[in-house]
């Protein structure tokens, strides 16, 4: 038990036979043996290796583990494309209200009107923010929103009697976009970004044919650039009967700045855990609502909210719907948070949030441009992609710059993405960081640049001040150990 955060033994190693934590049984009369009731032959032995710990031990275990994490609430976390903004704690408090948290999903609608009303209001707000006609809160995350949107596109075309098989995706796209295309049964055609880092209408015109179901594009794109020809591109697509799918993961740049619907988008997914500030949870849960233009509404997944005389209900009788992609309707606990966030900021707050996010990104870009030039000359929106020449000059990689940043108490930016930029550092500061924090980050980045040239081993061996030194990821992949096994039992 070290003084400072440090290694914590695995649960299974801390386990001591016979020890126990919570006991959830009610006291009561002795009962018939459960195995006898269910059928002895159906029942297992006790689970060998399952942990046996007291409640204080369990709590200490996880609290000590928590001490090993960086997190937005504690550190600047400018992970590009992830929008690690401050998550107001009141939103967590609201989601935990028994009226929400203890509500069973199959509660009769008339006993769940508050939850349904909240979702209806959220759908309305997201429609207004995106400039779209209909919203489904169904998808569990951005990627599932993408899949949902693409299946909607497929169903729409099919209903029109067209069986289109291709989706155009720019080379700068986030990995989920091509993966979603495959999952939705489309083949993917790659559109090249131009040298300035955006998509030209020309390129789309070149690729467009009657087999193209949609173009899937992120805007601002992954270089942080607002796609200047997007309206023209949308027109081209629509002319050929194709749809514009807008990946809304970067909506944090567009609140009150541009509505995807006005840009010509037919489908857009939102990542509530980014733009609408639901906490990221170490990798979810998030929520990935999708919004569509009216003609696509019939194809949205079931269930859908429906207003009846008796109030709101969830309707699954929608013949053209693509069906469902999960149980129930949406990651409700995250929807509560997103709803509260929108209410708190309101019209002006949301518009200001995007503008401040853009301000912060451009401030960082400007203050670092001599050492880490932007990958594009275009103005940045809410994030900027930086480059450097340290590899050439000092044999120091982006990866090593990132590791060194840890020593300064900053979570590194997203690295090596977008793929079209060599050694990219994708920095998204978000609007909730103060100028002082940005300045401190600038100082660290500048100092690291100097170190790279003078003492590159400092970077190569970083981090130096964390509870763990460089962790061997190659070894992990080469000899995968994906679970604990009792001493003596071989890993398989």
């Amino acid at each position: 038990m070290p003084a400072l955060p440090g290694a914590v033994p695995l649960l299974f190693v801390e386990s001591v036979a016979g020890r126990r934590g919570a006991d959830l049984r009610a006291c009561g009369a002795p009962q018939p043996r459960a195995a006898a009731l269910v059928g002895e032959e159906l029942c297992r032995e006790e689970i060998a290796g399952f942990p046996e710990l007291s409640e204080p031990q369990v709590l200490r275990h996880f609290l000590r583990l928590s001490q090993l994490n960086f997190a937005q609430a504690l550190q600047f976390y400018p992970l590009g494309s992830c929008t690690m903004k401050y998550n107001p704690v009141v939103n967590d408090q609201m989601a935990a209200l028994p009226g929400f948290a203890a509500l069973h999903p199959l509660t009769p609608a008339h006993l769940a009107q508050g939850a349904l009303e909240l979702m209806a209001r959220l759908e309305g707000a997201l429609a207004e923010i995106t400039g779209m006609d209909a919203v489904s809160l169904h998808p569990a995350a951005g990627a599932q929103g993408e899949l949902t949107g693409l299946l909607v596109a497929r169903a729409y075309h099919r209903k029109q009697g067209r069986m289109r098989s291709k989706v155009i995706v720019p080379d700068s796209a986030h990995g989920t976009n091509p993966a979603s295309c495959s999952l939705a049964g489309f083949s993917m055609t790659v559109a090249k970004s131009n040298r300035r880092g955006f998509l030209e209408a020309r390129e789309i015109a070149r690729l467009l044919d009657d087999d193209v179901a949609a173009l899937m594009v992120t805007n601002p794109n992954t270089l942080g650039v607002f796609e200047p020809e997007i309206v023209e591109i949308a027109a081209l697509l629509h002319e050929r009967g194709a749809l514009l799918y807008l990946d809304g993961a970067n909506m944090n740049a567009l609140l009150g700045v541009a509505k995807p619907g006005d840009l010509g988008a037919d489908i857009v997914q939102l990542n509530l855990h980014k733009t609408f500030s639901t906490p990221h949870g170490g990798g979810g849960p998030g929520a990935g609502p999708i919004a569509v233009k009216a003609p696509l509404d019939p194809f949205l997944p079931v269930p859908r909210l429906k207003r009846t005389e008796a109030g709101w209900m969830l309707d699954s009788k929608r013949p053209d719907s693509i069906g469902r992609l999960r149980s129930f309707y949406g990651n409700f606990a995250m929807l509560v948070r997103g709803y509260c966030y929108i209410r708190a900021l309101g019209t002006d707050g949301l518009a200001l949030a995007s503008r401040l996010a853009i301000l912060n990104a451009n401030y960082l870009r400007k203050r670092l441009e001599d050492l880490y030039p932007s990958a594009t000359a275009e103005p940045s929106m809410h994030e900027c992609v930086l480059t450097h020449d340290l590899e050439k000059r000092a044999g120091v990689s982006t990866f090593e710059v990132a590791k060194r940043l840890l020593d300064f108490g900053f979570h590194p930016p997203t690295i090596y993405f977008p793929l079209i930029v060599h050694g990219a550092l994708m920095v998204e500061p978000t609007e909730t960081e103060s100028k002082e924090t940005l300045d401190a980050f600038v100082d660290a980045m500048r100092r690291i640049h100097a170190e790279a040239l003078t003492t590159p081993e400092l970077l190569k061996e970083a981090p130096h001040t964390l509870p763990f030194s460089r962790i061997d990821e190659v070894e992990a992949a080469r000899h995968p150990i994906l679970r604990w096994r009792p001493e003596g039992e071989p890993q398989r």
Partner: protein
Amino acid sequence: MLDAIGVAQLDDLVASVPAELRARAQLRLEAGRSEAEVAAEASALAELNRGARGFASFLGGGFYRHYVPAAVSAVLSRAEFATAYTPYQPEASQGTTQAIFEFQTLIALLTGLDLANASMYDGASAVAEAVLMARRVTGKRRLVALARSLWPDYRETVQTYLSAFGDLETVEIPYDDTTGLLRLDRLESLPGKELLCAVAGYPNGFGTIEPLGKIAEIVHRHDALLVSATAEALALALLKPPGELGADIAVGEGQSFGLGLNFGGPGLGFMACRSEHVRQMPGRLVGQTRDRQGRQAFCLTLAAREQHIRRERATSNICTNHSLCALAATVYLSLLGKHGLRELAERNVQLAHQAATRLEQRGVRRRFSGPFFNEFALALDDPAGRQTIAERAGLLFGPALGESYPELAQSALISVTETNDSQQIERLCAALATREAP
């Protein structure tokens, strides 16, 4: 800051967005609210959900009412866990990565399989991803057999995920009208060479415990894979593990493990499989490794399966998963531990069987005779009418089965957990056995 950038005003920064678009982007929402106002409004909405409190509930159907120990939320509310993201930088994420490694181990132990991933969205989508995974493993086969007794939303989700693939066909295996169990003979008679995988609930959508071992035998005879799908994960503490019975991929919903209800989301999809199939697995995986000082450490691994590396050839598009829910399950399972979890499962069985027996004594019979864990289907003349009567008596139960199974219009589910007690069971008996018309 504007000066440093060299612009005069905030709006100059968005000049790359055409002015006309900006003008139209003006939002028509209400003005912002103070925290107190937001809290008051949200609280008022929460109060409107009368079904969330004051009722004795026997609602099941895929999400289960279990007590969540306070220590779970104490851990989940740690900002270090809640406001971190996917652990791309392992040196700054050993809390998250180790917890996921522990989660993977716990799921492997529960399912009796070699390994598990870091989480999926929920049980239904995990089943769909399992079918797609089975397809990658088995190659060019065409037929996906879904037990009709599988949860309806799981079946529908599989259908949606497969809808994009013209070359795949699903076939439904009926259930036995008496036992509520999958008809083994109908599985047997499928065109074996074309079978890719079969999916069976464990327990199934009637709460009944499928004979997984026998199903596996048939499926393996066809050289196909068996996917088991568990909605009530607590059952795995008592029932033989799917892996031991021959399931190749075990998926399910981990909501029972400390997540609460939350009106249906987030859930916790889990997925376990055999080592040899790991490279076809979707989702994040954490592996054990070492740091430079040789200390045991953990990091994301085998990323070559994933969208950010493999892009259109990835095993899935999943990116953000349900990491914090996996943490909740890890804390929950650690707290209950080997003995507590087993005893809790036993308590659920005891109460559910007590309820079934008492109802039977009052003339309300189980619809199916198969063995069950903590949920079972009742035969009821008029489920909706009964629900109304029950509601007046402060009771909730269901879902009624008619909407998903027209042939079971006179049937509804009852789920009994440790949150119920004998007295509630007696009230339920009274409500369901009374002759009063709704």
